[in-house]
C-alpha cells in the first residue's frame, strides 16, 4: 500500500521538481535520484508481494501480483540505468548544440512523467485507467521524440502521435465493449472494469462480445507493441528521438503494451472456449517476426536497425504468450526481461557510437573497437546477445520458445527458424564493419556511460547461465496466472 504510493509518487514528484529545475546543471542528478528512489520503492513492493502474495490496495484500484510486480521492478530498474546513461549522453548532445536548456527541462520532466505513466499502467487494477495511462505514456513521449526539432524528428513524432492515437482509440472501444459485457454481471458502478472482478466472473462473460472486444484491444494495444502491420511509427520514433528515449521506448513501453494485451487475453481465454485469442496472437506475432526479420537487411540507420529488431522480438513474445501454457509463458516472461536489458544496452552503445561518428548512418560508423574499445565491445556483445547467441539469456528464452513451438505449433517453427537466421545474417553483417575497420570517429567531450551497458549485459549473461531460484519461482507463478 505505502509501497505502491511510493512507486507512483517518486516519479510524479520528480517530474514536478524537474519541470522547474530541469534546465539546471544538477538536473541529471535529480533525474537519477528520482529514478533511484522509484527503484528502491519498487524493490520494497516486490519484497512485499514476494512475502505476502498478491495485493489489492486502495479500494481495489491497485492490484499487484507476480506478473506485474516483476514488470514494475524491471521498469524501475531500466528507468534508473537509463537515467544514469542519459546524464553524460545529454550533456554531449548539449555540447554538440542539438539541445538547449529549455528542451533539457522538457526532456527531464517528461522522462519522469513517462516513468509514472508506465508504472501506473502496470499497477492499476482498472482497465479504464490502464487505457488512460497508456495514452498518457504516448503523450509524454511525443514531445521527446521531436526534441531535436529536425524535420525528420517532427515527422516521426507526428506519425507516432497519430498512429498510436488511432490505435489506442481502438483499444478504448475494446475496453468499452469489455465494460459492456461485464456490466451485466457486476453492475454499472466502478467495479465492472476492475481486472480482479472481471477475472472472477470471466467464465460467464458473453463470448461474442469478448471476441469482438479482444480484436479491438489487440489491434489497439498491438499498435503500441509494434506488431506488424501496425508497426510503422516504431522505427521512426526510435531513430529520431534522443537515445535514452529510444532505450525506454524499446525496453519498457513495448513491454507495458504487451502486458495490457496479455491481461486482456486472460479474460478472453476464460470466456471464449476455443483458442480465439491464442490464434490471433500467434498469427500477429509470427507475422511481426518474419516481416521485421526481412526488413532488417534494408536498414541503413543504426537505430532503425535495432528498432526493427525490437519489432521482431516483440513478435516472438506475442507469439509465445499467444501459444500459452506454463513453459511458453515462462519463456516469454524471460524473453521480456532479457530483451529489455539487452536492447537498452545496445541503444546506449549505439547512441554513443553515433555521437562519436556524428551520424547514425551505419556506413559512416567504422572502427569502433580501435578508438573506443568499451563502446565497440559493448556493441559486439550486445548484438551477439540480442541475436540469440549462447550463453546469453536471449538464447535460453528463444530456445525454450522454439522447442515449445515444435510441440504445440509445429507449423510455425520453420518460419521462426528462418526468421531468426535471416535476422542473424543481416544484423551481424551490418554491425561487424561498424566495430572493425578503419576508424572514422572522434573523441567525445564527456566520458561515455558504459557502466549501465555492462551491468545490463552482465545480467543477461547471468540469466543465460543461471536464473536465481526466486526469479524462476516468480516467473513460474506469473506463467501460471497467465494460464
Amino acid at each position, binding site marked *: 500500500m505505502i509501497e505502491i504510493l511510493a512507486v507512483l509518487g517518486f516519479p510524479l514528484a520528480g517530474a514536478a521538481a524537474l519541470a522547474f529545475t530541469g534546465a539546471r546543471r544538477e538536473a541529471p542528478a535529480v533525474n537519477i535520484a528520482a529514478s533511484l528512489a522509484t527503484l528502491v520503492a519498487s524493490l520494497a513492493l516486490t519484497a512485499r508481494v514476494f512475502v505476502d502474495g498478491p495485493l489489492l490496495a486502495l479500494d481495489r484500484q491497485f492490484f499487484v501480483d507476480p506478473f506485474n510486480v516483476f514488470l514494475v521492478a524491471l521498469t524501475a530498474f531500466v528507468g534508473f540505468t537509463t537515467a544514469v546513461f542519459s546524464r553524460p549522453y545529454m550533456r554531449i548532445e548539449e555540447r554538440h548544440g542539438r539541445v538547449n536548456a529549455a528542451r533539457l527541462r522538457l526532456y527531464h520532466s517528461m522522462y519522469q512523467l513517462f516513468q509514472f505513466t508506465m508504472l501506473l499502467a502496470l499497477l492499476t487494477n*482498472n482497465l*479504464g*485507467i490502464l*487505457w*488512460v495511462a497508456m*495514452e*498518457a505514456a504516448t*503523450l509524454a513521449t*511525443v*514531445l521527446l521524440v*521531436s526534441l531535436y*526539432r*529536425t*524535420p*525528420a524528428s*517532427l*515527422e*516521426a*513524432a*507526428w*506519425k507516432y*502521435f*497519430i498512429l498510436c*492515437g*488511432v490505435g489506442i*482509440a481502438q483499444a*478504448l*472501444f475494446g*475496453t*468499452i*465493449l469489455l*465494460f*459492456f459485457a461485464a*456490466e*451485466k454481471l457486476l453492475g*454499472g*458502478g*466502478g467495479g*465492472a*472494469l476492475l481486472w480482479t472482478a472481471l477475472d472472477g466472473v470471466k467464465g460467464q462473460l*458473453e463470448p*461474442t*462480445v469478448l471476441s*469482438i472486444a479482444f480484436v479491438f484491444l489487440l489491434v489497439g494495444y498491438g499498435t503500441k507493441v509494434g506488431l506488424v502491420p501496425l508497426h*510503422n511509427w516504431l522505427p*521512426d520514433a526510435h531513430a*529520431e528521438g534522443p537515445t535514452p528515449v529510444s532505450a525506454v521506448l524499446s525496453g519498457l513501453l513495448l513491454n507495458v503494451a504487451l502486458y495490457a494485451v496479455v491481461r486482456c487475453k486472460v479474460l478472453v481465454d476464460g470466456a471464449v472456449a476455443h483458442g480465439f485469442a491464442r490464434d490471433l496472437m500467434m498469427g500477429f506475432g509470427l507475422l511481426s517476426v518474419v516481416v521485421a526479420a526481412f*526488413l532488417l537487411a*534494408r*536498414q*541503413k540507420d543504426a537505430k532503425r536497425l535495432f528498432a526493427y529488431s525490437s519489432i521482431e522480438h516483440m513478435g516472438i513474445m506475442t507469439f509465445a504468450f499467444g501459444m500459452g501454457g506454463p513453459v511458453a509463458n515462462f519463456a516469454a516472461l524471460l524473453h521480456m526481461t532479457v530483451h529489455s536489458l539487452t536492447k537498452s544496452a545496445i541503444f546506449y552503445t549505439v547512441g554513443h557510437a553515433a555521437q562519436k561518428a556524428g551520424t547514425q548512418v551505419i556506413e559512416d560508423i567504422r572502427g569502433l573497437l580501435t578508438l573506443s574499445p568499451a563502446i565497440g565491445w559493448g556493441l559486439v556483445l550486445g548484438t551477439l546477445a540480442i541475436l540469440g547467441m549462447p550463453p546469453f539469456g536471449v538464447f535460453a528464452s528463444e530456445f525454450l520458445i522454439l522447442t515449445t513451438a515444435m510441440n504445440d505449433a509445429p507449423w510455425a517453427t520453420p518460419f521462426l527458424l528462418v526468421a531468426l537466421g535471416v535476422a542473424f545474417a543481416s544484423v551481424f553483417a551490418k554491425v561487424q564493419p561498424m566495430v572493425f575497420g578503419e576508424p572514422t570517429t572522434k573523441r567525445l567531450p564527456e566520458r561515455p556511460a558504459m557502466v549501465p551497458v555492462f551491468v545490463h549485459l552482465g545480467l543477461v549473461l547471468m540469466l543465460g547461465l543461471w536464473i536465481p531460484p526466486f526469479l524462476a519461482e516468480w516467473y513460474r507463478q506469473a506463467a501460471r496466472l497467465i494460464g
Partner: protein
Amino acid sequence: MSALPLHAQVINLLAAILLLLAFAMLTQRRVLSLIDLFAAQGLALAVSTGIVAAYTGQAHLWWSAGITLALKVVALPWILHRLIRRLDVKWDVERLVNVPTTMLIGIVLVVFSFNLAVPISQLSGTITRATLGIAMASVMLSFLMMITRRKAIPQVIGFLSMENGLFFAATSATYGMPMVVELGIALDVLVGVLILGVFFFQIREQFDSLDLQHLEKLQEGE
C-alpha cells in the same frame, strides 16, 4: 413495429444527426467549417448523453454530458480556432481526393458497422442500444477521414471526432464508463490537443506549411 417512447426517438434522431455530421466532415473542404461541424457533433453527443441521464437518473451521466459540453463544444473548438488564427491558415482550402469515392467507401463502412453491431446490441439492455451501430459507423468514418486527409488540422479533427464516436458508443451501449475513467479520458484528450498545438508550431517553423506531404521523407526501409 411498436412505437418507441419519445426520449428514445429523440436519441435515435440525435444519433442520425451524429452520423450525418460525420459524413459532412468527410467531405468538408474548409478547415473552419470543419471545426464548426465538430462542435455540432459534440453538442449532439452532449444532448443525447443528457437525455439518457434524465431518463435513467444516472447521476454520473450528467457529469459526462457536462464534460462533453465544456470540452468538445467550447474548449476544443476554441483552442482550434485560436490555433488557426495564430497560424493564419484560415483560408486553407484543401483539395480532397475524389469525394464520391470517399462517400462510397463511407457507405460500405456504415453497412459493415451495422452488421458488426447487430449481435452486440441484441445483448444490450439499454434504451439506446439501436444506436450502437451508428456509433461504430461514426468511429469508422472518422478513421476514414484521417486516412484521406493530407493536412494536419483535419487529421486531428478526425481523431477528435473518433473520440466522439467512442463516447457515443459508451453511452449508448452501457450508460457510460465509470467516472474516474471518463475523467482520465477527458484529460488525455485535452492534453493531447494542447500538445498538438505546440506541435503545429514546430511543424510550421520547419516546413512553412501544415501540409503533411512534406512529412513523407521517412519511407519504409530507408
